[in-house]
């Protein structure tokens, strides 16, 4: 029986879960290879068994074991793109879906390798849309974070990181000039899951970041005015571009779906504002407009 189909009891740190790969079904034409990749709460360790060294996946936290089959990402072809552009009727969509499924099956047979990501997680946290497990989801390159602007200057905006979108879904549209990144569908943040930092902002215990003026937007980079893009107190959706230096992460909002998501008018004294285009927000009860670098809301 394959390891991913087995029933596991509660895993504790140091418990051996499975080898890094195993051989699966065998037919005359092909031999299935099942590969296991360590995810959250799992590590790849070397063990010595009867004098022979081998690598195995080991749990590193207490919780339930999960196997997630990784669907191989296919490179979009011209045909796929033209398909997207067409306005397809419901019946036609169904038909195409059927075709796609068939295609996938074909690919499955061509590729004898299956990849599973093995994770161990606390069942109380798993399946929740908002987790408090910020500690095990620290920001890294490429992660999308929600941050609050704490201070601005002409060259940069300083932020503190409040939450991290820890599960990203392949994009279907709304990707800006940074190319094929991963965002929530449509670029909005509502569909993504978040890990919320529990650290108290007043104690200076949150992770800090910097958005420098050249990373605010993708066009006209040298004419960016921070004052017209962010104000202290704004909540910004940004992407981590590097771990930065000792004290700050480097963040960027140079994408359509990144930028200010929540802002109050009059430096925080007024009401919440709504984005009316990518660089203007309006306060609905006064009608005043302020300039911000807004995130695409949908």
């Amino acid at each position, binding site marked *: 029986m394959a390891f991913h189909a087995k029933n596991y009891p509660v895993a504790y740190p140091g418990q051996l879960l499975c080898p890094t790969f195993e051989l699966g079904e065998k037919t005359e034409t092909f031999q299935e290879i099942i590969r296991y990749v360590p995810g959250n709460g799992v590590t790849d360790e070397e063990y010595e068994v009867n004098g022979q060294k081998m690598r195995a996946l080991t749990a590193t936290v207490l*919780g339930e074991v999960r196997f997630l089959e990784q669907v191989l990402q296919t490179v979009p072809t011209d045909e796929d793109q033209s398909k997207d552009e067409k306005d397809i009727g419901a019946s036609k969509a169904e038909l195409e879906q059927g075709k796609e499924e068939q295609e996938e099956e074909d690919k499955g047979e061509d590729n004898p390798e299956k990849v599973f990501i093995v994770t161990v997680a606390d069942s109380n946290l798993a399946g929740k849309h908002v987790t408090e497990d910020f500690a095990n989801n620290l920001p890294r390159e490429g992660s999308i974070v929600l941050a609050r602007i704490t201070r601005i200057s002409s060259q940069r905006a300083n932020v503190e990181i409040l939450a991290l979108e820890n599960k990203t879904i392949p994009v279907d549209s709304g990707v800006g000039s940074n190319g094929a990144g991963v965002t929530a569908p449509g670029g909005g943040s509502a569909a993504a899951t978040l890990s919320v930092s529990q650290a108290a902002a007043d104690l200076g215990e949150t992770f800090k970041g910097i958005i420098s003026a050249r990373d605010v937007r993708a066009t006209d980079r040298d004419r960016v005015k921070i004052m017209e893009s962010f104000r202290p107190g704004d909540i910004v959706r940004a992407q981590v571009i590097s771990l930065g230096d000792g004290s700050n992460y480097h963040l960027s909002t140079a994408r359509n779906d990144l930028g200010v998501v929540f802002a109050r008018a009059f430096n925080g004294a007024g009401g919440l504002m709504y984005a009316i285009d990518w660089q203007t927000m309006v306060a609905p009860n006064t009608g005043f407009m302020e300039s911000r670098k807004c995130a695409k809301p949908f």
Partner: protein
Amino acid sequence: MLNTTDRRRILGPANAKPLVFDRSSVPVEENQESAKKSSVSTGNDAIYIENGIVVNCNGSSYLEVRSRTNDKNCTLLLTSIYGPRPSRGAFNAKATLSVQFKEVTLEKIAAGQIKEICTFLTNVFNAVVNLERYPKSGIDVFLSLIHSSSGQQDFELESIITACVNGITLAFVDAGIEILDTVSAGMYKRNVTAFMKNGTEVVGFWKDDDEQSSSENILEIVEKCKEHYLTNRKTMIEFMVRNKNASD
């Protein structure tokens, strides 16, 4: 006073409500109630374990270990872990671990020896915690020794260190911080050895001056420590799994 503005935060109007993401999370008070108890007798010494007593830290454990020599005496140790939190200073791709040890009641151990204990424990857990997972952060371990057994000596350093290793491991598990193995320590006479991977790897070895075991081979000492380690590890895993199943 008016011209000294607080640039760090904007409080907004008095009736402003903070941004709340989800109310489905468990209230903090329940933590204390859900802390499970365990008293497991493992042959000659019994261990009492409790998790999550300290509410404001990321993870904590409380250990009561009965003395080898005197039934009425025991080592009481409270471990709390804070972090990973942002570290200051130079960039570090891995987490930095710090261990602080304090006697909260009677202070019997010399300052130099406390420092030695801290260095020993830091070395052990540097090899055990999956530090690569937590870049740019610091993890702080605070040990509070509430009581230590006073047998023939004024204090028994070896039983304190054993309790520290076991206590820190349990606190890391409670905090959900990734550790490579359920590390535990075993002692024999005045020697302590910390093991991982079911006793196949040694992560720490502590030896005190002592006449009783000075004639013994070091490998024999390690073997004797391993026996104690295996019972300790079994107790800890049993506790963790039982606690987990009870909370589900």
